[in-house]
């Protein structure tokens, strides 16, 4: 990127109005995601949890920058690589870690697991395991906002592999046709599991361009650059708020770990050099920290302190999760039907479960 262009993002109104504390908060959020995930990885390796664990490490800046712009009527939904979005939306490390551990104190009472973090009270709608399955849900959130006459929008995240699910295209057509305030953010980390972008997707310049066929504005941003992402996301949010129109925004980013912690091939489909190169030259955390130091609003020592706090918070979360109880066998049958959990009138009628 050109030096000048980069400067102009920093100088944009939406970034100029940031207070030093807000900028430091971005760093803090990135540290919190990273340390939370490191702690969870340790716990995974210690057998404290099962199944999948899709680390967001390397992509933290995307959730931090894009969600930083949301107001009280703006919503978020994402896929299974959801830890970053969950924390930035305001979920506590403890409830998330307890969910990973399958504990009753988890955000979904241990029923969802790491792919399914939800906090509707924070306008965070998950955490979805089926690739692109969340894309029409995000549309539906935007639909509900418009239906209710609320000036808001929904940020709906998906991966570079997810763009090849048909339901995403159906969603794009519906979004444009019905003029819904949904913003699809493609977090293009270059790979869907072990498949590189070039091997999974046909496109001209970039994936987001597919939006053009639906008459939807699209743009792209560099995921290392918080200022740039904020500028481009803000444009999309304004389009959503002012015109109730959708946007597709593609953000170039990178994940350091394998697809999930269980990805045995993590170091096979990408060269170690490629990964090291990213960590060394493109780490969003490191870059933002350096920028804040350069801007003179943070010292290295202060940054370290923030890092320490994040580590400590993650440790506490891990202990909380560890010490929490598992659900009981009876809990298997709650949260299936609202009518069973919260009977209305003289209900429920009939048999609901068939063992």
């Amino acid at each position, binding site marked *: 990127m050109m030096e000048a262009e980069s400067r102009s993002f920093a100088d944009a109104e939406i970034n100029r109005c940031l207070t030093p504390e807000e900028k430091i908060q971005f760093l803090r959020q990135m540290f919190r995601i990273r340390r939370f995930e490191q702690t969870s990885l340790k716990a995974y390796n210690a057998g404290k949890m099962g199944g999948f664990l899709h680390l967001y490490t390397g992509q933290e800046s995307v959730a931090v920058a894009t969600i930083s712009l949301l107001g009280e009527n703006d919503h978020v*939904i994402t896929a299974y690589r959801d830890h970053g979005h969950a924390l930035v939306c305001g979920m506590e490390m403890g409830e998330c870690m307890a969910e990973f551990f399958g504990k009753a104190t*988890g*955000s*979904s*009472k*241990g*029923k*969802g697991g790491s792919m*399914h973090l*939800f*906090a*509707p*009270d924070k306008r965070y*709608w*998950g*955490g*979805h*395991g*089926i690739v692109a*399955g969340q*894309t*029409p*849900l*995000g*549309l*539906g*959130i935007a*639909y*509900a*906002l418009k*239906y*209710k006459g609320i000036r808001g929008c929904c940020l709906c995240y998906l991966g570079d592999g997810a763009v090849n699910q*048909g*339901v995403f295209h*159906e*969603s794009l*057509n*519906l979004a444009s*046709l019905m003029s819904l305030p949904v913003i699809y953010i493609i977090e293009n980390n270059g790979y869907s599991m072990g498949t590189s972008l070039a091997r999974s997707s046909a496109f001209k310049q970039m994936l987001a361009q597919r939006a053009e066929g639906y008459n939807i504005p699209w743009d792209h941003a560099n995921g290392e650059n918080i200022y740039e992402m904020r500028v481009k996301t803000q444009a999309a949010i304004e389009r959503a708020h002012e015109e109730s129109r959708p946007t597709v925004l593609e953000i170039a980013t990178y994940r350091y770990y394998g697809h999930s912690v269980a990805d045995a091939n993590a170091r096979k489909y990408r060269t170690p050099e490629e990964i090291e190169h990213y960590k060394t030259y493109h780490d969003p955390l490191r870059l933002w920290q350096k920028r804040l130091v350069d801007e003179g609003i943070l010292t290295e020592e202060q940054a370290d302190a923030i890092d320490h706090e994040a580590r400590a918070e993650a440790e506490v979360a891990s202990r909380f999760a560890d010490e929490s109880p598992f659900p009981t066998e009876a809990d298997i049958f*709650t*949260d*299936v*039907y*609202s*009518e069973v*959990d*919260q009977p*209305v*009138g*003289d*209900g*429920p*009628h*009939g*048999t*609901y*479960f*068939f063992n």
Partner: protein
Amino acid sequence: MPLITYRKALNDALAEELLRDENVVLLGEEVAEYNGAYKVTEGLWARFGSKRVVDTPISEAGFVGMAVGASMLGIRPVVELMFWSFSYVTFDQIINNAGCVRYMSGGQIACPIVIRGPANGGTNVGATHSHTPENFLANTPGLKVVCPATAYDAKGLMKAAIRDNDPVMFMENTLLYGEQWEVPEEEYLIPIGVADVKREGTDISLIAHGRAVLTCLKAAEILQAQHGISAEVVDLRSIRPLDEETLLASVRKTHRAVLVEENKPFCGVDAQIASLIQEKAFDELDAPIQRISALDAPAIYSPPLEKLQLPTPDRVVQKALSIC
């Protein structure tokens, strides 16, 4: 009580609920300006306007998912599938998103959606358009499934379905849309999960859902008139939740059961009912439970053959006689 069609009963239910709750919205292909492919939504767009009655493109996965998402925020979408057969292009949205979101969020999210449309064979539209997936959907904990057989039931169950806080799969039948039944003018609801004994009898229980209930009623007439056999006809109405008590009570009284459905036999709804009865009323049974389902092949197009493929009163009578 006025006689109205099954179609009109549904239409009235939708209109009443649209009027009652501004969060109710109808969505689907051709439901608005075209008045519905089978005219179930006739007049509603004219009456309630484009916000409440919404045409969609041919994107079932997209608009069902959209409706699920909207329901999470408290909208109460009633989504028409022009045919339930088309549910297979949106199966993931139904099972994983509508069916699992409450569970996976630990009860934080409700999904008060109704998905409705016809699910039946018998209209010469071929194999791809004649699916009856009530068994698939009822297999799925988290979903409710209802299959009304009369205009009265259709109206009361539709109103209950729209007010229900769980996702309700509502299965209609194009062959019933034009049939008439008595329906009261005053408002009523029928709770989901309550079966209905459509005809009392003492010698044998005919247990059915959807249009097969009418087939059983005809068979019961024949059994009475020609064979002096008193058949009780139990209409499940709701597949999940299931009113086990009513159907078991019937079997405990008659000691014989024939299960009739238009579903395909392998793992059809009646496989479950048979399994249940033999388990819970084993000592009450004087004969093996018999089943009549659609003949076990893809729905044939040929009009006269297709009639044979679905259960007929005659086949029900023969089966009943075989165990009486």
